[in-house]
Each structure stands twice: as structure tokens, then as C-alpha cells.
């Protein structure tokens, strides 16, 4: 067995995908999974299937758009890209996340100092 990985927190996957698409431009599901794997450096354990649930949710909210295209090895694949509304949402969510993680970080520090 490998070392223990953290489960992806619910709701944070949406944010990670939005950010990924924002940073790298249009990607297919596999690409997104790879990117998250790469960035998390094996810290996060991800059921890659859940990426698709997240993608559907984001699509339904109109934050990302999907288009059929051709992958690197010339196969048909669905490419996802962030929309204008998605950009705005990303900004809001990112700020939100930073504020919360900041608060949580401080709270945890408090615990440690005692």
C-alpha cells in the first residue's frame, strides 16, 4: 500500500477544475485528471470518475462549456473550456477559499500554541 492520501474535499474539486481550465485553456477530462494529479503530487486521492460529475455540474451552471474535438493521439474527445461567467465564479470562489483557509489556518495555529 502507498502512503495515505487525503480524500478530495467535497466542492473543492469544482474549484480545482475551474482553476485548471482557467490556467491551461481547453482540456478533456483525462487531461484535467492528469493535471490535478500532477499538481497534487500524489497527496490527493482522486476517483477520476468524479471529475465527470463535477464537469457536468459546472456545465449545468454555465461556468464551463464543452466541445467535441480531437485529442493529441487523434482520437475524438470532449474538450472543456471556462466561460466568462465561469471566470467570475472562479474569482469569487477563489477569494472565498482563501478567506476560509486563512481563518482555518489561524484557528489551527491557535490550537497548537496552547
Amino acid at each position, binding site marked *: 500500500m502507498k502512503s495515505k492520501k487525503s480524500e478530495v474535499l467535497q466542492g473543492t474539486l469544482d474549484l480545482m477544475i475551474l482553476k485548471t481550465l482557467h490556467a491551461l485553456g481547453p482540456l478533456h477530462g483525462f487531461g484535467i485528471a492528469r493535471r490535478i494529479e500532477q499538481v497534487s503530487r500524489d497527496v490527493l486521492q482522486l*476517483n477520476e470518475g468524479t471529475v465527470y*460529475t463535477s464537469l457536468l455540474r459546472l456545465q449545468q*451552471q454555465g461556468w464551463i462549456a464543452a466541445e467535441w474535438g480531437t485529442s493529441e493521439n487523434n482520437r475524438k474527445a470532449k474538450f472543456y473550456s471556462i466561460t466568462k461567467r465561469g471566470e467570475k*465564479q472562479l474569482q469569487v470562489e477563489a477569494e472565498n477559499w482563501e478567506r476560509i483557509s486563512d481563518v482555518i489556518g489561524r484557528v489551527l495555529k491557535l490550537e497548537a500554541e496552547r
Partner: protein
Amino acid sequence: MSTRREFRLRAFAAKVRGFLRGHKRDGEFDDEIQEHLQLLAEKFIAQGMSREEAAAAARRQFGNVTLLQEDRRALQRFLFFEALWQDLRFSLRIILKSPGFTATAVLTLALGIGANTTIFSWIHSVLLNPLPGAGDAHRVVELESLAPSGEWVPTSYLDFRDFRDHLKLVESMSVAKPMALAVGNDVHVERVWGETVSGNFFDVLHVQPEIGRFFSGVERDDAQNAHPVAVISHSFWHSHYNESASAIGAILRVNRTPYSVIGVAPKQFHGSMAGLSFDLWVPATMYGQLTATGTWMLEDRKARMFRVLARLAPGVTLEQARSELASLAGFMAKADADTNEGMSATLLPVWKSHNGIQGSLLAPLTILFGASGVVLLIVCANIANLLLVRAADRRKEFSIRVALGASPMRLVRQLSTEVLMLAVLGSVAGLLIADWLGGSLRWLLPLTEAPRLQSGGLDSGVLLFTAALAVAIAALASIGPALHATRDNVNETLKEGGRSGTSSTQSNRLRSLLVTSEVALAVTSLLGAGLFVKSFYRVKSIHPGFDPNQVAVAKFNLSAANFDAQQADAFCRHLRERLERQPGVTAVTYADYVPLSLGEGSWEDLQVERYVPGPSENMKIYRNLVAPGYFTLMKIPLIEGRDFTMQDDDPHPPVMIVTREFVRRFIPRGGVLNRKVHGWGQWFTIVGVVEDSKIHRLTENTRPYFYVPIRQIYRPEMGLAFYVRTAGSVSEAMQSIRRESQAVDAMVPASEVMSLNEWIAGSLFGQRIAASLLSVLAAIAFVLASIGLYGVVAYTVAQRTQEFGIRLSLGAQPRDVLGLIVRQGLAFALAGTAVGAGLTLLLGRALGNFLVNMSAADPLIFTATAVFVIVLALAAASIPARRAMRIDPIVALRYE
């Protein structure tokens, strides 16, 4: 930017889109997954894995595809409805797959729901919605006068005017008196039921005309015989004027006088009496003209003949208005002491009125509603039982579904959907039955000729009731099986493997409980019906004091012909002579009243010479006005003195014949003949004494009664009934009455022509309905309970086939097996009978009021019922028991 609500809204919109799109997109998604898995696998192969390892690792890293698809579905669909749809389809399949079960269940439900819906529709049209078409009908009440004797009496026009002009808590008030009217000319005349009403009648009821107008302006004043105008019903407008607007202003001859039609009432409106429909409304101020009585009837406080409807003022309670009325009536009793002494008045909700059919139907309908409720409970128990038996057969199915992840709630939902579906099918069938029985309300009424019955039919109120019934049945019947299904242990059931084995003791106990209560309920309804039937025959066997055999009677409405007293007398004498000439006729007579009529007869305030009444003694004595020959025809023995003769007419001194009870009470010391009695403002001389007979109902105690010659007192507004005794057939006599009366005067059609025996049966109609309809319901209850009993015993036999096989192969005799099963059936029957008998005894006090000359604990009825139930139980149990006896041990042991 994105608020929570917006988020939800978009998610919902996505679901709607997904729902509209159906299943199309899933194929694309599958491609996407396949692509992903393939890329992953290629990545692993590149890392040095074998092809198989890579594929497995890819799947692992990707996660559970099925779960993923479920998640996506949840995002794109309304799962609740999908599940419901699934349940419905599955239920339909299950229902269609076992047609025997379905047919039994639906038939059972149809019987129960049909009976309940029919009885409810009666109650609905008689009691719950007595004034269809009226606005704010719940604010309309009836005003009834109360005689010193405590009897309900109609109200005189003068009293009505005082009430109308002085009550402040009553918004508006109208009289209403039903009348049979002769509409048409001498060539073609028809009988139409109408109401004579106050000018503001339609205002009181909040009714608007369909076309034309209602009474207005001077038509509303109290001037008598001045406004010959009429409002017609929608159905009369349809049948006589083809719904043409030209009906307004048309001339209608009513009781030989031209009336102009001023308006048409709306379709839903049928008049002011529950369950009855009227076709014509004319001002009450025309009463004297309609009846050829001049003006005195509306000017005499003693002429109490009107129903009074009142609309309470806004915000006023019935109690407040009642006490205002009571004090006003109290004041009038003193101010008009000569006519109103001791009188009072009160207000009643329309459904409690003593004037319509509701008075006589309230008690029978209540009893019937209770009995049909019992039938419904049996239906529920039966359905629950059927379901339990099936649940036992379907245990494996349920266990597998639970093992595959179905939640217990889901199973319960599935079961309830099935039951609900059966209930809906049953309701549809039940509604068909109820619709077929649509006009059946008339069975509840005696054969008398009354206004056309207005059956409410299956309107929204009734449909709502049926729907509620179906849901209630589904809920009640599925509780047991649902609990049972969810409590089952998956492992145990699956471990039992292929063996259907024995079902759990728990479900056996539930089934026994259900079947025992079914039998108990059926026994209760059977006992109830038995008691009513016996009571009915008790009453029927009471001798009325006259001989009703071989006698035909017919009523005539002379007022419709607008006769004066002389014309009426001439009509009677002519008809009598003609009838006496008919073959087979042995005697003919006529009178004002037919004994044992439903409506109470009339009374007169008497003063008997040399008798001093007690301070509160009721001297209002009931009477009949009869023609000579009445006692001979009726075979009422004359004890002393003489019968009336044709000479006892207007110019001769008034005479009277009294009954034995009259003499016992008022003239106990002898010297009856030639004693003077005062009534109608004159002194009568007693010329004879006759034997007592029944007057209003067979069950009454003997009361003082007296007779006076119809030719001395007769007035056209009184009733007229002809009596014909024949040596031949009564129906022939009835025909000659119809024919001869037409020949004498076509304007005076005979009504309610029937044999005197039928007439008496009419007076028993309350008991008759209770007895006959309760018997029908009890029969239904019993058939259902027998089916239930049979079902349970048969199921046990099927389940215990193996066990019986073992017993038989170990040396048990077939009759031991038979005994085993029959004992079980008998145990249910005995327990059920005991409980049912106990229940009936508890209910006995309530039933006691309806039973005549017997107690509710009638040993004969109880014994007969118990024997009947036990025999039936034996029969129900012996069919499966015989099957068990014939079990071949070898086959049984190999069974499954």
C-alpha cells in the same frame, strides 16, 4: 455573484432539460468514459504494466462507473418521479401477472367502494348539500313552529309576517309550501310540482335567474291574489319551451288561471327541499286563488301551513337568532293568546328540518352509513390478507431487492403503489356500480307521489369522497404487509433457498387476527340485519284495527281543479256512484285522510261537555273526515250508535263518531250518545262509538280519535282519498279509479293510486329500508368474510403440504388431517362470532331505539347467526381440507 437560489434554479432547469431530453446523452458519456479508461490504461502500460494489469488499474483509479452514472442521473433527472414511474410500471406488471389475485381484489374493492359511494351520495344530496344552486347555503335555516304538545307544526302566514317584520338577527325570510299544480288547459293538463313562496324567496337563497327576472316590486307585497306571475325551472324551460327566450312573457294556465312566466331558475337550482325538485314558483299571496279558498287562509293565525326559510344576518350565530325568535314567539303567544297560546318557534339547520325527506331519512342513512363502513373494514382486512399471502410468496423477491440495495422505504413504496393501483381500479369499478345505482335514492322513499327526486349523482363532492376512500383503503390495507416486508431478515430468507417452507409465525398471527376480525365484523352486521328484519316483521304483524286487504285507495288534489265546496261535493258523489257500478266492487267511500300515512294527520282543539281537562292537558285531538260507509268498508266495528248518513250534510246539525279510547278518557261514566263536543266553532253531537284503530303508525299507543262527516266540514284545501273494496282484483279496482275519475273531471287526476296494503307498507318504509338494505350489506359482508376465511385456510393448506405429507406417511389418517384444518377454520369462526356478538351487545343500546317490541339481545337471532356462521366456516374450511386429505405423501415430500 451566484446566489444560492440562482444555483438551485440552474440545477433545476438542468433537470427539466434532462427530463425533456430523455435518455439520449448517455451514449456520448459512455464514449467519454471509455476514452478516459483507455488513455489511463495506455499510461500504465507505458509505465511497464501488462495489458490486463493496466486495464484493471485504470478501472480502479477511475472508480465505480455505475455509481458515477447514478450521480449523473441524479443531476439530470427527477429521481423521485422516475422511481414512481418505475413503481407504477412494475405494479402494473405484477397486477397483470396474477389476474386471479387482481380480479378478487378489485371485485372486493368495487363492492366495498360501490356500497359506500352510493350511500354517501344519498347522504350528500339529502343532508350535506340540501340546497344545491343556492349561494351561502349554510346560512339558510328553517323556522319551525312548536305546538304546546311539543309537536313541530308549519307556520301560519300571519305569524310569518310578524316574524319577518320584527326579527333583527335574520337578514331575510320567505315562506315555501310545496303544491301539486295542474298546468294546462282542459284538453291537456299535467301535474307539476311547485312551491308557493314569498317574493324574496330567491333573495333568501341567493339565486340569480338564468334568464328573465324573479319576483320584484309590487309582486313582493302582501296583497292577495293580485300577482299571477310564475318562475319556471330550467328543466321545465327545457321540456316546454325548448330553452327559448320567448318563454319570458308566455302565458301558463295554472289551476285554471293564466299566469305569466317572468323568469327561469338556474339549472342547478331545484327548489328549497332537499333531494326533491320543483318546476314552478308562484307568489304565496296567490294561495287563495290557487286553492279557490278566497283570502281567509292567509288571514287566519290558525291556518298553519307554510314552511319558513330564513337567512341569518351576517355574523349572527344560530343560537343568537334562535333566542331572539323564542322571545318574539313568546310575546306573540301572549298577544295572540286566542290562537297562539303555548306556541313557540325555533330555527333548525336545513338538514334537521322536519318538513322534507331528511327527517325520515336521517336515522336510516346513519345506520346504513355505519353498516357500509363495516363492509369497508372487511374489505380492507380482506385486501390486507390477500397481500399478506402474496407477500409470503414474494419474500424472495423482496429479499433480493433489499440485498441489491433497495431501502425498506422503497419496498413499502412499491407495495403501497400496488395497493393504490388496485384501489384505483376498485374505485373505478365501484363508481360504475354507484353510477348504475344513481337514481336509487327513490328506493328509500315510500311509493307516495312526491316531487321528482333529485339525486345528486356523482358530483365533485362524491368523487372526492371516493378518492379519499381509495387512499384510506390503500393505507389501511398495506400497513400490515409493508411492516412485514421490511422486517424480514434478508439472510434468513435467502438461506432458505428453494424451499417455500413455512412462513413466519408473525405473519400467521397477523393473518389470523385479520380473518378473525373479518368474521367478527361480518357477524356484527349479520346480527344487526337480523335484528332489524325481525323487528320489521314484528311491526308488520301488528293488526291495524281495520282490514286493508282487497282495498284500493287513491288521492285527489281538488284544489288543483279550483273547485268550491259544492263542486267538490258533486265530484265526490259522482265518482262514488260510478265506482259503485264497477264489476266486483263491493263498497266505495271517501275520506280526508288515509290511516298510516307518512305525514301526520290533522287535529282539532276539542272541548267535551262535562269533561274538565287538567291544567296542561292536550285537548288537540286527531281526527278524520269521512263519508258514510267508511267504517263498514274498513271493517272497523261500530260498538254503539249509528254510522253517518248522506243526510249528515251542511244544512243538518253537526254530528261526530268517537273511538273507544276517546270514550275511556273523556266520557268514562257512560252516556256517550248525544253528548256534545265543541270544535271548529260549533257543537257536535256524538252519534256513535267505533273500535280503536292505528292512525299514524303501527307502533303507536292507542290515542283518542274522532270522526266527523266530510260533507259537514269539508274544505277543498283538505285532502281527499277514495277507498274501493273489491271482491275481484285490487289492481283492476285501481284502474277503474283512474279511468272513472278522468271521466268525471279531467282536471282532477288521481294520484298515489295503490292498494291499502301498499299504503301501510309505505308507513313502514323506515324499518323496511333498514331491514332490507342492512340485509344486503350483511350479505356482502358475509361473502367477503367467507372469501377471507377460505383464503386463509387454503393458504395454510398449501403451505403445510409437506408437513401433511410427513404426517400421512408416518401413519396419520386422512381424517386426522381433515380435523386439523377444519379445527383451524372453526377456531376463527368461533372467536369471530364471540367478538362480533359482544360488539353487537355493546351497540345494542343504540340499536334499541330502532327496534320494536324486542331487545337487541334477541336469543333467537344470536343463536341463528352463530349456527349460520359456524356452518359457513365449516364449508369454507372443508374445501381446502378435502384437498389436504387427498395429499399423496410421496408427491408431497418431493414437492419443490
